[in-house]
């Protein structure tokens, strides 16, 4: 039986730290289904309602380095990862989030302590308040702040150093 876990992402490689930590710490248990969710507010305009395309939006927001980094992780933990999915959450209240969690059958949400929220675009919003109030157990991961300057920040190489 695979376990479904949820992480918030802002399409930077920083946000993949959590996955590394969880998967490295997991014993040889059942494979994980990982969902990377990003909060996005969408317009009420007719244009937006008719022509909103999740896949295209995700393609816009993620760059090659991020996609490659996800691939590297999937290859590394091939037996532990059942699937890695990037999704957008476009609701705006707790109920909507609860429905989302139920639909995706999420077992656990992971949050990195003291992680600053970086908006990927002007419509992004922070999901941490929803995480806290949701019924699904939220586990906090402790991560040391990496204050060192990194020449490879933003590139694929970052995932190796994190």
């Amino acid at each position, binding site marked *: 039986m695979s376990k479904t876990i949820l992480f918030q992402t802002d399409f930077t490689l920083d946000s993949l730290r959590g996955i*590394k930590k969880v998967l*490295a710490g997991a014993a040889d248990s059942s494979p994980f289904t990982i969902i990377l969710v990003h909060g996005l507010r969408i317009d009420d305009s007719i244009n937006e309602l008719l022509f909103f395309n999740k896949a295209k939006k995700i393609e816009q927001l993620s760059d090659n380095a991020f996609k*490659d980094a996800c*691939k*590297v*992780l*999937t*290859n*590394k*933990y*091939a*037996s532990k990862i059942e699937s890695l999915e990037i999704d957008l959450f476009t609701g705006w209240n707790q109920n909507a989030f609860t429905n989302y969690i139920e639909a995706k059958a999420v077992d656990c949400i992971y949050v990195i302590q003291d992680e600053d929220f970086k908006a990927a675009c002007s419509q992004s919003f922070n999901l941490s308040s929803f995480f806290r109030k949701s019924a699904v157990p939220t586990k906090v991961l402790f991560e040391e702040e990496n204050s*060192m*300057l*990194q*020449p*490879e*920040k933003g*590139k*694929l*190489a970052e*995932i*190796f*150093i994190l």
Partner: protein
Amino acid sequence: MKAQTKTVLILVTSFIGIILFFGISILWSVSNYTHDDFYKLLEIRAFTAAKINFDTTNSSIPFKDLQEEFFSKLPDEQDYFFTITDTNSFPLIAHKLQVPKQFITQIYYNKKAEYKRKELFFKGILYQTQGKSHLVIASAINNFQVHYYDYLNKILINTALLALTFSLITAFYLSKNFFKPLKTITEKTKLINSESLHLRLPLKTEKDELYELSFTINAMLDRIETSFETQNNFVSNASHELRTPLTAIIGEADVALSKLRTPEEYQQTLQIITIEAEKLENKIKALLFLAQTGFNKNLQKFESIRIDQLLYEVRDNLLRIHPELKIRFNLDLMPENPEKLQIKASHQLLMLAFSNILSNAGKYSNYSTVVVSLGATEKHAVIVIKDAGIGIPKEELKFIYDPFFRASNTGSFEGYGIGLPLAQTIVRMHQGEIHVSSIEHVGTTVELKIPILKPLGRS
């Protein structure tokens, strides 16, 4: 002129086709309609005439009035009445009216028939009254057919020809206008050669396909010019680099020969000359190799290699030459499936490239630890070499692949400036990518991506 004439021909033929179709369908449908109309008219006439003729009862009188009041006089109108006694009389009747026999038989068997001889229309009906059958045939000349149809025909032909002339002119004008900018581009591009590489095509304001063509050609010229300049720089840099040790050798020799010296002084001079000569030899070897690898791709043997094993080999080799080198392998993100580390490569070339990069990483960080990480994406094997060395100044990052370029902060370190350009050429030969990111005084990270031998499906 070929494409131009082709467009003109296509346009003109399609115009002709459309106009012909237009004209013919108008003529045909109009004439069909008027024929049917006229036959209907004749049918009513025939019926009325029959009624008047054969029905000698009172009810026929209103018909006569009807006929006189409403039926206009048709040109050459003629009514024929035949009482049918036997079918043998048909050919006679036909001959008398100068109509085909089928017409008469058709009237008898189908109850009505139509026939037309030029503009003379015949309509026959079978009228049965008082137990007897009569053939009633009404005939008249179709006025429309005579006057208006021909006129319509003439008008259509004339306007068709006129429209054709106009379309010819338009087609010619259009194609000329369209192809003119293409001709301009061809003319301008002819002027560009190796001496005048700085010339560029003029760009119009409207961003259409021709603008894109000119824009793309200009971009291509930019790239060509840059590579030309790089080649020129290479030659001048190389000759400068080679001249420096030669100058030192000649200088030393001249000074030593200027007056009588002690044997020790001569020994010293000869030692310096030997060192400089070796430097020269190394530079020339590197140069030859660089030039060779750039062009003789086919000479190298490409085989299936495990990238992690290759890297271990490089480390072991380097440690023999530089035992103070500290290399740590980070296998955190190595793919579970070792097939993802199998690449198609030339063993000798990749060893050379990685040796250069790793020795650089160690050298410029005063031999502090160099971290080598391995991973795999869907199609590439990823190798990351990170050092905590002197870094590369931001403004100089774009020059690092220029042969013999040495950054401004490399003063105290030995080097010829060949390592990275060589590595880049080699990586390119393997269809890979190389990216260098660096912060001055913090360190440098080199990221290489090399295509996997058999990119597997989604795992």
